[in-house]
């Protein structure tokens, strides 16, 4: 029944899945404040629920549609059921069109959404996890004044993420891509009245924007080489990327394929040929597209060069970090690589770059996470490192393994973040201070007070650390195994690669990537368990924070923490700006002088709690926060079996097979003894988990944190280096920001002093000076003026008195010319047209033109005498030559 209602190629259910979050965002955004918190909560949750149900229904319809296409196929003797790459697509309207190919073909870009195997799974994750996080944040943000604005942005984010996943062509994906960028900007800077939050939002948007620059370049490269931008068009036109011939390559040096030639500035020769390389440095279209799209992915999925925005993004509310910076948005980069896998595999250089970027980011972020004290910063760096894993997996050609890790990571990382959120929520109720309520050192022993949060957090920690039965183990192990075993090779075959002399990755790359991955696994296990032990085990260290009287008492009795921070600036949300709409109109004159005056920031203690008593202990979060934790915890535990590669039970691989059919088979060869290595490598993974967690247990539980302090005091330099995140931000400050600042300053200096002075002030001074000079001529005496007039008249008179003969030859074609004399008042002429030196006629005549015939190459000088009314005469001569070339110039011939 549903089949007829929603046919495969006009699948209107997508409109419902997309429409509901958009409707929720619009309603909450515009009328949210007037509707009140309950209505907003209801609207947001129903929007997500309906969207999730729609996703579920369409997923099963997709499964049904895929089953229909199943047919037997024998591959190397192994009989297996193969399915085509089916899509449920719906075209809303025709968006726009742009030029493709070499400028002639027109690439049409419809607003077309499609659900296929890959986007089906992602859609489920986004709407499912999204709904849980909406439920969670309805309680978490309960006491925030801008409740409705938060849910408007969250719904808008879900809508943009769905557009990103379901978009059928690259520009539509780009719409979602920047839509999620905008929502993360708005959500990170949600508490905008504190400048660091707004700055973090801006930093996130700009970093994403640099990634989007890569995506835009990828788009116009694809439009040029493949002549299409939608997935099917791209896969058909993909071989366009590897066309041979000099014109189809991207010339990097000399730029655009030109050539450095010397040129002369006046006498001075400028030797440009020294820049000309012996052979032009070119890269193929595929590598260029791959690198451009990779830049986009690093921007969005926070990989090495552009990861700086993710840790700062923790300034936003925790559910935001859970949804955006753990489960959905950051995985967009990996989704794009999986979606365009058939393009990335065309260039092994790009695949290796992706793998190396992934591995490097993984280990780099893991090292930083070791020493962070803010609970959300640890999780942020762990997200960056896990994303590194996924990119590594996709980079070595294990697209389905990488994608499966996206799935499992969405569950356990969302659970971790929500757990951390509930901890912060509890601490915040006690201490009302943003920074202090997130610092692990103020926590400890929460196991006793928040059992539900603790157990779900613990399960997720086990999962992320790679404890065998849980999901993390299977997905991470699959990636590590694939990293070791896979070898990427160009699907287009050897001859083409030779002709394009493309770069092939060394065989030793696999093991290196494997070892890096393994070390990261150890580090991951260590910092995750450190986080768990410090936060949940031991006894609660947070009694005296924000309670001065207790602090004083602690000094007397000598126990408790000697940490120095006390009251710091209160979270300004409760800060009452007393800006009631005073009636008086500030247009009045008196208002002007004090308008610009700065307001001194004063602290008024909003909260009214009695600070002398220790206050009630941290309480467990209400049910809307713990239920999602439990669901996500169970998924984190059991999701592994969805794709247990090692147990050879891999439904996800099989489900994604048609999507990666084009790329995975041809481009990836397994190392010789691949099957035999599977179990030993898995064993090494488990060993890494045990080592990491064991060390953490020994340091933080048995020795209660003393070795960590000893190590910190022992190597302060290294410790500070890691604490300051390898000082990457300072590096960017010094290089990129300083560079742009310098450029901007020179631009403004150039604008103000060079151009403005040159064009504006120089001309005005010239006018001023000439004005002064000419002023002197005005003597005021009438006679001088009259005299000047007479002089002018005299000049005119001379002009009339003296005759002015002018001669012009007009070629009327075929060698004969007409020589014309300029007319004048009362002129009479005497010609010597044949150039023989004697005047043709005796008396002057009024004939003012003479015909003349010349054969090729002949020259004749025509002489003319002119007499004017005053009887003065003047003669003039004009040599008329006919050019050598036989093809006489047709002049004036009208085609």
């Amino acid at each position, binding site marked *: 029944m549903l089949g007829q209602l929603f046919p495969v190629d006009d699948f209107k259910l997508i409109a419902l899945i997309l429409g509901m979050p958009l409707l929720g965002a619009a309603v909450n955004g515009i009328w949210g404040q007037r509707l009140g918190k309950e209505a907003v909560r209801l609207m947001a949750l129903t929007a997500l629920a309906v969207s999730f149900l729609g996703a579920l229904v369409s997923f099963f319809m997709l499964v049904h549609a895929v089953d229909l296409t199943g047919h037997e196929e024998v591959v190397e003797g192994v009989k297996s059921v193969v399915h085509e790459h089916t899509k449920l697509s719906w075209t809303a309207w025709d968006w726009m069109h742009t030029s493709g190919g070499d400028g002639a073909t027109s690439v049409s870009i419809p607003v077309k959404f499609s659900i296929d195997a890959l986007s089906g799974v992602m859609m489920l994750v986004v709407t499912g996890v999204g709904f849980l996080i909406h439920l969670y944040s309805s309680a978490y943000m309960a006491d925030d004044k801008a409740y409705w604005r938060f849910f408007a942005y969250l719904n808008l984010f879900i809508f943009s993420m769905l557009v990103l996943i379901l978009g059928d062509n690259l520009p539509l994906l780009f719409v979602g891509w920047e839509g999620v960028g905008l929502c993360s900007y708005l959500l990170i800077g949600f508490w905008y009245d504190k400048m660091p939050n707004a700055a973090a939002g801006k930093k996130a948007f700009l970093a994403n*924007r640099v990634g989007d620059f890569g995506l835009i370049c990828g788009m116009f490269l694809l439009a040029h080489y493949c002549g299409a931008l939608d997935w099917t068009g791209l896969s058909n036109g993909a071989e366009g990327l590897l066309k041979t011939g000099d014109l189809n390559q991207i010339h990097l040096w000399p730029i655009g394929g030109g050539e450095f030639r010397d040129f002369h500035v006046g006498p001075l020769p400028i030797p440009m040929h020294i820049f000309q390389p012996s052979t032009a440095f070119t890269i193929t279209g595929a590598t260029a597209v791959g690198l451009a799209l990779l830049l986009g992915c690093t921007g969005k999925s926070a990989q090495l060069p552009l990861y700086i925005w993710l840790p700062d993004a923790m300034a936003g509310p925790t559910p935001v970090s859970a949804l955006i910076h753990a489960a959905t948005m950051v995985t967009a980069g990996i989704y794009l690589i999986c979606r365009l896998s058939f393009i990335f595999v065309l260039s092994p250089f790009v695949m290796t770059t992706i793998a190396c970027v992934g591995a490097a980011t993984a280990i780099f972020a893991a090292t930083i996470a070791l020493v962070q004290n803010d609970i959300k910063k640890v999780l942020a760096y762990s997200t960056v490192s896990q994303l590194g894993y996924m990119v590594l997996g996709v980079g070595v050609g294990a697209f389905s393994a990488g994608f499966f890790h996206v799935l499992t990571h969405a569950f356990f990382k969302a659970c971790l973040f929500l757990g951390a959120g509930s901890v912060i929520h509890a601490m915040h109720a006690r201490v009302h201070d943003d920074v202090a309520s997130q610092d692990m050192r103020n926590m400890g022993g929460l196991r006793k007070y928040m059992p539900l949060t603790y157990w779900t957090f613990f399960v997720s920690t086990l999962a992320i650390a790679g404890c065998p039965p849980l999901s993390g183990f299977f997905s991470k192990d699959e990636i590590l195994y694939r990293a070791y075993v896979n070898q990427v090779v160009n699907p287009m075959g050897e001859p083409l690669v030779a002709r394009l002399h493309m770069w092939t990755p060394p065989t030793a790359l696999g093991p290196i990537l494997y070892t890096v991955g393994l070390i990261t696994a150890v580090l991951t296990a260590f910092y995750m368990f450190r986080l768990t032990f410090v936060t949940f085990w031991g006894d609660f260290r947070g009694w005296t924070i924000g309670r001065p009287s207790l602090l004083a008492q602690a000094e007397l009795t000598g126990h408790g923490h000697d940490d120095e921070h006390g009251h710091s600036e209160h979270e300004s949300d409760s800060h009452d700006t007393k800006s009631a709409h005073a009636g008086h109109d*500030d247009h009045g004159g008196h208002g002007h002088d004090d308008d610009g005056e700065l307001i001194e920031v004063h602290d008024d203690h909003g909260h009214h709690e009695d600070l002398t008593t220790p206050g009630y202990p941290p309480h467990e979060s209400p049910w809307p926060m713990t239920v999602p934790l439990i669901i996500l915890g169970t998924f984190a535990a059991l999701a592994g079996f969805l794709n247990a590669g090692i147990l050879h039970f891999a439904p996800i691989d099989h489900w994604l097979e048609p999507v990666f059919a084009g790329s995975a088979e041809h481009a990836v060869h397994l190392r010789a003894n691949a099957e035999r290595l599977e179990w030993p490598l898995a064993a090494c993974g488990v060993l890494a988990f045990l080592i990491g967690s064991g060390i953490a247990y020994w340091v933080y539980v048995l020795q209660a944190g003393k070795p960590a302090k000893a190590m910190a005091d022992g190597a302060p330099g290294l410790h500070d280096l890691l604490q300051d995140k390898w000082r990457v931000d300072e590096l960017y400050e010094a290089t990129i920001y300083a560079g742009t600042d310098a450029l901007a300053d020179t631009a403004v200096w150039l604008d103000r002093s060079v151009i403005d002075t040159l064009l504006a002030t120089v001309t005005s001074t010239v006018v001023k000076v000439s004005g002064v000079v000419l002023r002197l001529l005005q003597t005021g005496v009438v006679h001088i003026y009259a005299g000047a007039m007479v002089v002018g008249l005299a000049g005119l008179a001379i002009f009339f008195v003296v005759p002015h003969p002018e001669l012009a030859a007009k070629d009327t074609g075929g060698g004969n010319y007409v020589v014309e004399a300029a007319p004048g008042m009362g002129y009479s002429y005497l010609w010597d047209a044949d150039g023989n030196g004697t005047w043709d006629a005796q008396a002057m005549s009024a004939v003012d033109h003479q015909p003349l015939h010349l054969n090729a190459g002949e020259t004749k000088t025509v002489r003319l005498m002119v007499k004017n009314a005053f009887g003065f005469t003047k003669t003039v001569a004009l040599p008329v030559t006919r050019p050598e070339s036989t093809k006489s110039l047709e002049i004036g011939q009208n085609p």
Partner: protein
Amino acid sequence: MSASTDVDQPSSHNPSGGSGGVNASDLIGLIFLAALAVVTTRFVDGALPVILAGAAGALVPRAETGKSAWATRAPMAIVAALLALFVVKMWPLAAGELPDVTTPPHEPAHLLSWLLAVPFIGACIVLVLPRSTPGILIGTTLTTMAATLAVALPILSVPMGRTYHFNHDFLWMPKLGVHYHVAIDGISLWLVMLTVFIMPVAAYVSFGSITTRLKDWCFALLLLESAMLGTFVALDLFLFYAFFELTLVPMYVMIGVWGGSKRIYATMKFFLYTFLGSILMLAAVLYIGYAYYKASGVPSFDYFDLSRLMIDRDTQVWLFAAFALAFFIKVPMFPVHTWLPDAHTEAPTAGSIILAAVMLKMGTYGYLRFCMGIFPEASSEYGATLAGVAVLGGILYGALCAWRQTDVKRLVAYSSVAHLGYVMLGIFAATQASLEGAVLQMVNHGISTGALFLLVGVIYDRRHTREIEQFGGLAKVMPVYTALFIVATMASIGLPATNGFVGEFMIITGTFVSNKLGHVAGIQAVGAAIGVILGALYMLSMVQRVFFGPITRKGNLRLKDINNREMLGVAPLIIMIFVIGLFPRIFLDPMRDAVSRVGGDYSTRLAASPGPKYYVGPTKLFARSPDAPAAVTLAPGEAPFAP
């Protein structure tokens, strides 16, 4: 997409429950409206989206205390409904569908002349009105502008195609060969529509802040509208030059009289820059008019006659330089752009809106129509270098300068330099997509920068300063204003689903695939893409310093949020941002054939004269282009001053 932030102070109406009491008369009115809506949706097929848009428009604004609900809601509803009607009526044909060309709509011949005449007559009426009655003056101005809009609407009903429509051509000065030739085609269609759409908005908003010498203001506005419309529809170089110069006069007065503190310097600089540039163009116009007369025996300044000319390389380069300089000053391109920031900072809000929205487009339109039309060889020879200037000097330089400005209006002015760098890049690349993108970006820039200037005017009217550090934390006190400003910023940055992205994307893709930019097409496309990052950089850093963070100045504590007049003024612009962003084909389809004609003529002329020295020899004449309307000329015999 529009999300307005919370209002922290105890606002006047209760946050929960309906806004303001709903008394009996409103109830009856609502019921009547609902009935009317149901009836129209049943009979008129396309009415449903219009009704929904109207209802949404009605509900959006917060009912301001003191004013009756209808006064705020009704106009917003009407605006929303009208724009929805525009979208429904102009909905592009699906891929397969053929336009029903059975009955081509009747084209009244003198419509364009009426289009120019109505604002001019309005201006004369305003002159006659008494000086001290603002109500009547405002009423007349707005009704005249509405009448012009009404006159312009039938143009949309005509399927544009390749040819020129509403052609009205007669010999104005037979002896000199000057035609009064006005016509409209796909390209000038949207610029005329933009002018006719922006003028009422700018005028309506200006009446909030302009109080001194209102009569002269209204006269200047109407004269400006008539002159600008004239520039876009004139197809005789003499007429075009006349209108091109005429637009300077009212703008000179608007900046000079109602401007800011340094207005005299700014308006003088603005006038002299543009005037000197166009003087050179006048010389070139006269030269080619004479060249055409010598070549064909009949004097004519008509565009279609002059584009038949084939002038030898040396003179053509000089003529091209004269024309191009006049248009580059107007655009403004890199070296001659310094008048724009001064003009914008000193101009009144409405002046800035019109200057940014329409007057800058005269430069780009002029270059596309006249420079590339009459001197294709010279413009292709210098196309690559000029595209380099557009990318480096316009996009990147404009963005960097914008980032360093401390004055909001100067920042938005430099952003205009960057945006128009894109448009010029699109024109120099001369592929189908880049040309369409360029024309669309002209309209987009008009709308998004018009909205930005309008919003900057809002805070200028309240705080009488434009310095960025004078503001801070406005989001807390002016939430609705912040939301609108962020939407306008996103449009100006080029966020997808807003209008900025569509134009920029088409230009950048068109540039990369262009074969007219020599071998630098690639690097210029990448340069333009980098412009996208810098755009985000300077706009967001400004938004952050103005809106976010704590409130640091006393004056900002008591700022009132956006009032109805400003909200109603900016609403059509914000709606159009999304309409073009989501349904760009409404604008792209009518202009596609015209753009392919321009691109086609341009490349055929280039193919006809290859090589660096493309043509040497006396001026030659090509046949009249088939798409040109019928020629109106003197019989050769009775040429006026026959030698």
